[in-house]
C-alpha cells in the first residue's frame, strides 16, 4: 500500500491500495512518509518496501 497521509500523534497513516481502496494503518513499527510503499498485515505496516 502507498502512504497518503501520516498522523504522527496517533501513530496512524492513511494508506491506499492499488485498487484505490483506502484504510487506516498502524505505523508504530516503521518510519514512513507520504509516498512510501509499505507491506501491511492485519492493519499494521510491517516493512517499508525498498527498490
Amino acid at each position: 500500500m502507498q502512504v497518503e497521509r501520516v498522523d504522527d500523534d496517533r501513530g496512524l497513516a492513511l494508506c491506499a491500495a492499488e485498487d484505490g481502496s483506502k484504510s487506516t494503518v498502524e505505523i508504530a513499527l516503521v518510519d514512513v512518509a507520504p509516498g512510501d510503499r509499505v507491506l501491511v498485515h492485519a492493519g499494521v505496516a510491517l516493512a517499508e518496501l525498498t527498490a
Partner: protein
Amino acid sequence: MRYVDEFRDPELGRVLATEILAAVEPGRHYKFMEVCGGHTHSIYKYGVDDLLPANVELVHGPGCPVCVIPMGRVDDGIAIAREPGVIFTCFGDMMRVPGSTGSLLEAKAEGADIRMVYSPLDALRIAKHNPDREVVFFAIGFETTAPSTALTLKRAKAEGVPNFSCMCSHVTIVPPLRALLDSPDLRLDGFVGPGHVSTVVGARPFEFIPADYGKPIVVAGFEPLDILQAIRMILAQLADGRCEVENQYSRVVPYEGNRRALEVMAEVFELRPHFEWRGLGFISQSGLKLSEAYADLDAEVRFSVPGVRVADPKACQCGEVLKGVIKPWECKVFGTACTPERPIGTCMVSSEGACAAYYNFGRFAREREVV
C-alpha cells in the same frame, strides 16, 4: 503495479525455468519445502509447479496460521463466545475452522455474537463502542500477525479499555521447523523460507537449518518469479556444495528483522512451555501467551475455557499434509467429503491451506503435468 508486475513477467519466468532445468542433476530427486501457506497459494495460483522439472518436488509446510489450530482450541473459543454479554471477534478464515461440535460460524448462527475483523485494532474499536459488553479477540498467526496483536494490546492498556481481552493462540515458526527436520518421515533437500514471518524476525533465526541440519534455505517473496528465483538459488547452493541462509526477498526482509516489532512482542508475549499444533502434536516453546504485565487482558484468565484436547476426525489427514508426508489429493476425503464449502480439515479452510490451494486451482490430477 510497482513491486508486483516485474515479479510476474512471463518471459523472465521462462528464463528462470530454463536455468532451473539446467541446474538439476538428472536422476536426482529434489524435495524442497515451502514453509509458508502464502507460497503454496502462489505456487498453484500461478502454476509455478508446472514450470519445474519433474524431479523437483515441492512439499507444503506448516506455515498456514489457520491450519495449525487444533480442534480443542476452536472449542475453547466457542465456549468463550457463548458466555453471556461477550462479543467474540476473529479473522474470517477462523470462523469456518471445525471444532469438535461445530465452527464459530455455526455458533454464530445459533445466536453467539461472533464478528469477523480484519485486524485486532477493529476488535479494539468494537470494544470502545460497546463498553457494556466484553469483547474478546481470538489471536492466531505466526510472527507476522503477532506484532499487530501486541500493538493492539498496548493500545488497550494505554487507553484503558477494560472490556477488551485476547485469547492468544499465536505460534512461532522455528520450533515446528525443527520438529519437522527431526522427523524420520521426511527427507528434505532445502527450504523456501517464509517471507512475511521473516519481515518481522529476519533471516537470522533460520541459521540453525544449515548449521544443525545441513540444509539450504532461501527466504522468498510471494510472486511467481520470487519463488522460481528462490528455487534457483537453492539449487545453486546444492550444486556449489554450499549450505546457508540466503534472502531472495531483500526488498522487504532485513536480515535482522524488524527490531521494533520484536521489542513489542517481547514486552507483550512470553513463550508457553508447550502448545498443541494440529497434526504435529505438542511442541515445546512454540506458542505465545500474554506476559505477566498483560495478564489482565488475557481472555483465558478472564473466562473459564474447557482446555480439552480433541483428536482430529479419523477421516482427516491434515496432520500428514501439514508435515508434507502426503499430498492433499492423497487424503481420503479430499474433494469429496472435504471441500472449501464443507471443510473437515483446517487445510481446506484457509486459502493458504495446501488442500484449499489444490482444490481451488484444480489440482485434482494424481500426476503433475510438467511443461
